[in-house]
């Protein structure tokens, strides 16, 4: 395995793994805050119990998130030392701020997780506020570093080196606002739907308790409130791409030829050789309308870029469609649920409806991972857009393939251990939980 490919594969696997736990780390604190707040406000003990029951498995997930995040911070140096030598002075600032946010998050998580017997109920609730804020801030800062790679700012090149360095301008790179908003909202949607799915499954399996109904309603509500906002931030992102990251948009939409009145292509398998998209569904003029608010506007295609500077639409377009498709799937399931709930004025006990929520539940996470793949594959071959190619940033140290397989084994072992720990819980614990559901 070629060194650069091994470095890319390892970074990709590491990020793909970490994103799941980081997402839960952003989304779950909000749920804890809402549940503890509801418990204090309404005096309904059930919500407090709910939050305390979440926090135990969540503690394990947070720990995996912390250690897999450490892998990433090391990999920046182990795999991409030349990229970091160039970018460190520029994107160090968001990581530095993220460091403090993560510190705060870890502290208040520990207080909430372990503090039940040592802190008052009010203090426990108050701990969830800095926890939620710090978690969201972590996400927003880390995303700034990614945004800078997409739309680098705050420097100019002089003899191959960055000069005129302005870390604040690098922090606030053009792509940051929409990426930060879209990414953070996506974490809330992904967590909300994933948790709702767990309760839909419990209800389908016959655990028809008030606890499960309340928990499903609460988690799905958080997911559903964030979902339409995702539509707006996604549209914001797409119009931004149309102006500032044209190659990425063209690859995402499998749009080969620059032209006016561009159609939107749904599905299909883009073929760079023939510049066509077999099996794709074409909707006339829609891409121009969405990207430029004008059905006859010119949309830049992949042909506007030299062949060695084009992202591969086969890696971008399918994930883009998967992300958008996942959105509509979740929107349908959520709409059905809330419509039925509104009509009947009570929790809808329909099995088909619960099955729909269950089916939709992993798609928040799937959409989030797909969106990340779109933004990363869509920037290829660049690590820092138009300034540094991925291969130029990689380590000269040999043997990265070995490191890749080593960490692949680490991730596999962690995943197996995690699944065994979380899923195979003794029957008496499950029975006890069920008995407590309606206590």
């Amino acid at each position: 395995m070629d060194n650069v490919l091994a470095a890319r594969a390892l970074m990709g696997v590491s990020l793909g793994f970490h994103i799941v736990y980081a997402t839960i780390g952003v989304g779950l604190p909000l749920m804890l805050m809402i549940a503890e707040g509801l418990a204090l406000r309404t005096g309904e003990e059930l919500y407090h119990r709910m939050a305390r029951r979440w926090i135990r498995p969540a503690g394990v997930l947070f720990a995996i998130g912390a250690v897999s995040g450490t892998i990433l911070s090391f990999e920046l140096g182990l795999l991409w030392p030349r990229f970091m030598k160039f970018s460190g002075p520029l994107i160090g600032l968001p990581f530095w701020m993220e460091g403090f946010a993560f510190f705060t998050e870890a502290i208040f998580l520990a207080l909430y997780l372990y503090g039940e017997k040592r802190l008052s109920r009010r203090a426990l609730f108050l701990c969830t506020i800095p926890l939620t804020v710090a978690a969201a801030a972590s996400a927003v800062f880390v995303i700034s570093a990614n945004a800078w790679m997409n739309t680098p700012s705050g420097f100019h090149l002089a003899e191959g080196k960055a000069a005129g360095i302005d870390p604040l301008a690098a922090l606030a790179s053009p792509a940051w606002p929409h990426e930060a908003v879209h990414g953070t909202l996506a974490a809330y949607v992904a967590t909300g739907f994933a948790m709702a799915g767990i309760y839909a499954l419990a209800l389908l399996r016959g655990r028809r308790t008030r606890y499960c109904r309340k928990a499903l309603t609460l988690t799905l509500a958080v997911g559903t409130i964030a979902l339409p906002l995702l539509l707006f931030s996604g549209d914001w992102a797409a119009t931004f791409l149309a102006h500032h990251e044209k190659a990425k948009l063209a690859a995402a939409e499998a749009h080969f030829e620059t032209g006016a009145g561009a159609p939107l292509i749904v599905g299909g398998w883009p073929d760079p050789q023939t510049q066509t998209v077999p099996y794709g569904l074409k909707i006339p003029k829609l891409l121009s309308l969405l990207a430029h608010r004008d059905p006859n506007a010119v949309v830049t295609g992949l042909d506007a870029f030299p062949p060695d500077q084009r992202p591969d639409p086969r890696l971008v377009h399918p994930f883009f469609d998967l992300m958008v498709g996942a959105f509509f799937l979740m929107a349908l399931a959520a709409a059905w649920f809330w419509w039925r709930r509104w009509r009947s004025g009570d929790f809808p006990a329909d099995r088909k409806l619960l099955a729909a929520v269950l089916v939709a539940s992993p798609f928040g996470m799937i959409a989030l991972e797909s969106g990340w793949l779109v933004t990363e594959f869509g920037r290829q071959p660049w690590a820092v857009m138009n300034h540094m190619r991925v291969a130029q940033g990689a380590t000269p140290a040999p043997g990265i393939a070995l490191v890749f397989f080593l960490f692949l084994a680490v991730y596999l072992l962690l995943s197996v251990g995690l699944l065994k720990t979380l899923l195979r819980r003794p029957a008496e614990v499950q029975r006890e939980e069920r008995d407590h559901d309606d206590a």
Partner: protein
Amino acid sequence: MTTLSALAAAILLLGVIMYAVFGGADFGGGIWTALASGPRRREQQESLFQAIGPVWETNHVWLIFVVVVLFMVFPAGFAALFIALLAPLVIALVGINFRGAAFAFRHFGRENGKTLPFVAEVFEISSVLTPFAMGMAVAAAAGGSIRLAGGQVVSGTWDWITPFTIGGGVVGLAICAYLAPVFMTLRTVGELREDFRQRAMVAGWVLGVLSALEIPVAVLSAPVFAARLPAPRTLACIALAIAFGLAAEGCLWRRLFRAGQLAAAGAVAFILAGFGAALYPDLILGQLSIAAAAAPRPTLTAFFTVLPCGVVILAPSLVFLYRTFGGAPNPENPPDDFRV
């Protein structure tokens, strides 16, 4: 410029010290879980397990702190160190992951009355492996075996293994093994406390002897580093390390546990400060100076602007955390007189 980068290097050293003192004690907990002995073996392991729980993730963040300071403020040093020290850093990283995951799995399993096989062993082995690899990596910066030419690393993948860096790994282990029982004396009572007191005193002498032995090893294996030791600032750090170490032994002898904890932390801090003082003004001994590794001035300015803002949030939160979980280690069963 030079002053700013030297100041930033001091912050970096402070991060390393904080990680060693707090994170190191957690690894030491794993080491003493493996080394637990005597009639109260189970109780020793149990109290270590409970003491680590609420704080290890927070303590672990000091490592992230160090890495971030390194790549933001000293990007050239970060790149060179991570290329030259690929192997020990990968080993440490694997250890960090298994230690953290094993602890989390065990903790969750405990709450649910179910444990996975091998998890305890993985926790203990990775608690030994990680500080050793980390100690080697830190020592390698001063070992003289990393060579740069024109800013590029030219030394080989395994050049960092020398008697001096192996000594660094052993001292790293000894630091962890020393701090954990010292801190535990404040969190236990009765015979269990006496167990930890004895172990702390023995580990203190072991750490002192091993650190002292590292000096003749340096003379033989890292002569450039050894030549820098007689500088006044380094000698002052060594003297303070010895003074704090002896004070800690005295406090433990007289059962002044709170003072003993502070003195022990001081001894470890000054061992590392002495290392830093001998390395100064270099980041990689004889190859890359702190000033040459530093990022441009605007980055340093941004770094020092964010620092106080971060500290204002961080310091009170940390104090609150340690106050809440101080005292008897079991978070589910706080002492009667305990109120926050």
